């Protein structure tokens, strides 16, 4: 599965993540599941410039993950089969699910150094996802 985004789609997606419901921007939820999930996840980050910078640093060291669909899958994956993936969380509890996931990453040692900062692998991948979406240009979106 591959995903392609335009910068316009991404920026609107970020806005949708923050105030999407209020504004009724349901247009952006009409794409594929992975597209919608990427929008939903990155919408948790209210400072996309900061996230994108960190995400770029992460991707520089982990180029094999420079694929939005793969990142969505990795973020959604759960180490404990008894637990639902974080991406299964409804909108209203997505943030708390991510918070719990990040906490467990630190407990389990699922961390990564990004320019020296010890980050949870989940938050690093979220940043990478933001970076990918932000880098997407209309020219790339054939």
């Amino acid at each position: 599965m591959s995903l392609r985004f335009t910068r316009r789609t991404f920026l609107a997606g970020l806005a949708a993540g923050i105030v999407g419901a209020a504004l009724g921007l349901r247009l952006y939820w009409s794409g594929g599941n992975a597209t919608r999930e990427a929008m939903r996840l990155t919408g948790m980050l209210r400072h996309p410039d900061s996230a994108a910078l960190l995400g770029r640093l992460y991707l520089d060291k982990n180029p094999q993950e420079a694929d939005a669909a793969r990142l969505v899958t990795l973020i959604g994956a759960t180490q404990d089969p008894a637990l639902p993936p974080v991406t299964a969380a409804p909108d209203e509890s997505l943030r708390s699910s991510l918070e719990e996931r990040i906490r467990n990453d630190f407990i389990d040692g699922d961390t990564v150094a990004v320019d020296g900062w010890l980050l949870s692998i989940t938050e690093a991948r979220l940043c990478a996802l933001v970076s990918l979406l932000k880098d997407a240009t209309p020219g790339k979106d054939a």
Partner: protein
Amino acid sequence: MIEDARRLPEDTLIETDLAIIGAGAAGITIARELAGTNISICLLESGGLEFEQDTQNLYSGENDGRWYFPLDSCRLRYFGGSTNHWGGWCRPLTPIDFEARDWIPHSGWPITRADLDPYYLRAQPITETGPFRYDATAFWEDLIGAKMLPLSLGLITTTFFQYSPPTRFGTRYRKDIEQAANVRALLHATVTEIETSEAGAEVTGLRIATLGGPSFRIRARRYILATGAIENPRLLLLSNRMQPAGVGNTHDLVGRYFMEHPHIPSVANLVTSRPEAFNAAYTQHLSLADSIMHSALIPTDALLRRERLQQAVFTVGVLGVYNSENLTQPATDDELHLRDVFNLQRDLGPPRTTDHPPAGYNDWPPAGSLGASCAMGCACEQAPNPESRVTLSEERDALGLRRARLDWRLSETDKLSLNRILHAVAKEFGAQGLGRVRLTLSDDGNWPEEVLGGYHHMGTTRMADSPEHGVVDANCRVHGVANLYIAGSSVFTTGGASNPTLTIVALALRLADHVRTQLS
């Protein structure tokens, strides 16, 4: 009584029960403890009552290993010794610091923390510090009206330093020495040789010189060497007329195992969107009713045992506070991504628990702050290393004595241990949503150039049960020498990560009790 040795007639012989060489924290403590007894004491100080450059120059020496401070800048050679520039940080060694840890070669004191606890208790008022409650979290929480960090992974925990005013022993206790009928303090009296019997089994006297003045001798029943962890081995090595290797050096241990507490002022960055969780005690000295306190972070014993690590202690210093005003300005710290990580943490981390600090001692965080950027400093334990050592230089001082040469060496395991504890700090903070940590040390065993000592000289006449493993025994008596004792941090078997002065005073009290029994 305090007098100037330069006024003594040449070749005077002074006879006394106890000769104490060095009037610093250890020497003055022992003299005070025995003041008023029927034990006659001669307390010898190389300097005067104030700083004098020509005397201070006697401390000059060579640095032959990794970079270290000029030796004459580390210690003060006048009445009160280095307490005259002491910073006042107090904290006892922890119980695990005394243990033989099989992952740290040469570790294991012949005494335990419990053996020293009664003396730590007595050391508190001498250092003018508060209650002996260094690890009593609830006690300090009640006192300041704020909780310590919620650390639940069992990796790191909060500990507490107390601050001496600091006590300048030479000033604070000068009157006690002056008024003690059984104590004779001689200023400007530099011991140049510890004389021994031919077999080296007993000290028979001390040769003493003054700069530009008379030389004289002291004969005592017991002798205590208390001149610091560089000068103690220096004098033992210099005293080689009967024993070519020096006094107490049958097993070539004198001067070896020199330890410091490697300090890195900014070993990690920390950004937090929950500044309220770090109560004021983490970021500043708190002046309480009868103590001055500061919180710090240490690895738990469980982590040290499980990961086979060495001690370390971390403090937090605030670099800046984020608020709604400065967050709209362009970032000035782009190269470190401080603000980017801060933004990430506040986007995904737990919400703040309170908006305002509780009343009382806390004025942290400032009103309106959204977070903070901090630097973490560390002091860590250096494992005993026989190649890290003090020897004699070929250069000579104004009295014709060979100067000290220091070869300070740190090991790869010292550094790797510190790095793993830093990772534990970062994990704990991340898991608790307290912040994110940027680790600045490389993952290898190479120490960065910016590592400094803490002016904490330790280990060069280490304590051990057997003469094959140490210079002094559990009573601080030099192995194989019937009447010579050593006081001060040179007897530390391992150094933990606590500043040494409180332990120096506790050990001095213990030695005073022992010598009192011996001489009574």
